[in-house]
């Protein structure tokens, strides 16, 4: 059906749609090629949506009133929003137990001062892993650095362990190895939970195990895609196999 609709559009309209999908330099493409390309992009989008869980897929239908790919240019003013903000700061947002999204701004004046004094300055994100949300250095289990470019302003950070607290510093380093902390994020706690730390109880108590999974059961089958629950189940399976091999 989409192919038929694309076929009904003019070359200019097809070029506009392709440009909107991020295709650079649409001029060399002929009509047929553009139709194929757009159809391919649309199929990819549909495939991406299928990765969503059922609730998200069905929720999407609430907003389905037309096919986005076939809708023309947006009909109102393009609003201008700030490119960056003058306050040097970094923010950490939890995406899931193993990933956080960090974004930051560096005051342009402050940045110019650093780069004028130290043209080869390096920039890092220093990620601290801690046991709890408290500034006591004793809680720090370790840290690791992520080198970034001066033009970067965001990063997805892998959090090694669930149930831990993370904090990030934005740091510049000059050629002499001198470090300067430009800003620090607030602390972020990655979700963990009782069973992550006490999986053995689940192994030894069948009622606990039944209760643990019962919320994901329709009475006959269990289904859960939660990464921490899958990890607990995998740990239980591993320890079961270990016991078997010892026997």
């Amino acid at each position, binding site marked *: *059906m989409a192919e038929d*609709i694309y076929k009904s559009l003019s070359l200019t309209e097809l070029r506009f749609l392709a440009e909107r999908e991020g295709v650079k330099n649409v001029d060399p493409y002929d009509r047929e090629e553009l139709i194929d390309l757009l159809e391919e992009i649309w199929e990819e*989008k549909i495939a*991406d949506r299928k*990765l*969503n*869980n*059922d*609730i*998200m*897929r*069905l*929720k*999407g*239908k*609430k*907003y*389905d*009133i*037309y096919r*986005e790919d*076939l*809708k*023309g240019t*947006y009909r*109102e003013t*393009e609003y201008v*929003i*700030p490119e960056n*903000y003058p*306050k040097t700061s970094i*923010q950490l947002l*939890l*995406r*899931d137990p193993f*990933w956080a*999204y960090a*974004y930051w*701004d560096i005051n342009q004046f402050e940045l110019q001062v650093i780069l004028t004094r130290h043209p080869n300055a390096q920039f890092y994100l220093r990620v601290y892993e801690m046991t709890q949300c408290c500034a006591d250095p004793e809680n720090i289990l370790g840290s690791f650095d992520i080198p970034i470019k001066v033009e970067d302003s965001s990063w997805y950070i892998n959090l090694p362990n669930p149930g831990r607290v993370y904090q990030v510093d934005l740091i510049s380093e000059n050629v002499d190895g001198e470090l300067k902390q430009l800003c620090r994020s607030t602390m972020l*706690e990655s*979700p963990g*939970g009782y069973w*992550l730390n*006490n999986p053995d109880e689940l192994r030894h108590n069948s009622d606990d195990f039944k*209760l*643990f999974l*019962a*919320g*994901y*059961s*329709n*009475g006959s089958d*269990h*289904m*859960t*895609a*939660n*990464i*921490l*629950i899958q990890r607990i189940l995998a740990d239980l399976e591993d320890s079961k196999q270990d016991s078997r091999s010892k026997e």
Partner: protein
Amino acid sequence: MDKGYIGLTLHAHLPFVRNPEFNRFLEEDWLYEAISETYLPMLRVFNRLRADGVPYKLTLSISPTLSSMLSDHLLQSRYAEYADRMLDLGQKEMKRTADQPDFHRLAKMYCNMHQQNLEDFNELYKQNILAGFRSLEETGHLVLITSAATHAFLPLYQDYPQAVKAQVELAIESHISHFRKKPKGFWLPECGYYPGLEKILSSYDIKYFFTATHALTLANKKVKRGIFAPVDCGHDISAFARDYGLSQAVWSEDDGYPVDRVYRDFYRDIGYDLDEEYLQPYLHDKKIRSFTGFKYWAVTSKSDFKKVYNPEVAQKRVSEHAGNFIYMIERKTRNISRILDRPPLFTLPFDAELFGHWWFEGVSWLEEVIRLLADNNHIELITSEDYLRRFPENQQALPAYSSWGTKGYSSVWVDGSNDWIYRHIHRSIDRMTELVERFPDQVSLKGRFLKHAAREILLAMASDWPFVISNGTSVGYAQHRLKEHIHNFNLVYENMCRNSVNTEWLTRTEKKTNLFPDIDYRIFSRD
């Protein structure tokens, strides 16, 4: 046989879309479709059950943006026009299909539905369908609760407690103004919870909220009743976790009831099948084909091959599916009761718009389930409020950070396509707090200017925009809306920093965005 409880909660929400500057506006159809296909048919079912003396009590969350739109005169009159247009299309369809009996009776079915919608909307509810829900609450059939003011996904604002408080406080104020009653329950948008949120909710006298399943499965303590009872979060507030397994029967697009082959297909719509010229009066723009709601085909299979929809066959299947649902609950009750010290509670929250809009037969299924439960001696329909009254003592535990989105956390609302929005929204919140500190007691023009700035931030916080961008539907519109709100906020901020007010702009923008007219901009103060 073992006893069990089932807590059905429906969450009705749509983002605030109101564009008086256009005669017709495409995205306003989200509201009109939901009124036609979900809210009015649902009200008919609830009223019918009440009239038949069927005992039932459900929880219904109505978001403040939806309440505002449903009580807005412009949108009410535009809905009446929309329903008129749909009735007109129905009559035209009856003529077009006169020689095709299978299609003709479906055209007639839609025509009757729009006729009934118009009558209910104009005559029964005098264009304000909130009155219908209020009446059902007054007779004890519904418990109405609220949700965040603009449906913000709250875990992504946990470092901005002033913004979270603003979302909660305004939600409660809005609920009181529409329903004349303070809500005891709160629907967390997308079931998005972070530890600490319960304290904010509790400080506004909220007694319970709903979470995803793993919020309790992965709680900080071993939860002895699993998800089959609420937990006491320690501040006179309880968390009810949804039963993922049971709700999949309804939610699943792969093997849930709604995709049964005899049910009506959602995608095949005359808006895409018929000539543009014929559809012209009903489309927004000749370039944009859109759904009309006139859908004549059954799901049939996953291929393009479709059979004509047969409502009688579908209704028979509705009864079977309602029976199967009760059977599943009974079976699960039997399976789980042995290890519990009280009857299990199955918490089943759903988006209201799932019923009727996507799952056309969903409203009938809901009616059948309620009727079957009324005659069932083992499974009792109960609301969270009544459950807490009956079982006031619950285990203390803190739920885990969670949502009901894909993968169970925030990844739907923070991904490569939508993560850019948070820098702007968070900075705007900081700037709004700064404005409150600099201008703590403005009234008149500057007060209006600041009120409007607060409104713009709240609208930018809606979870709908990052969801829509991530989901790939209406991306252009969602991006446009976000940029509009961020731009408008910054315009106020910059003007206030220069100690000036753009009166003409303010008047125009207030007229367009009339949400929360009594908002106090100091709601964004740091305290």
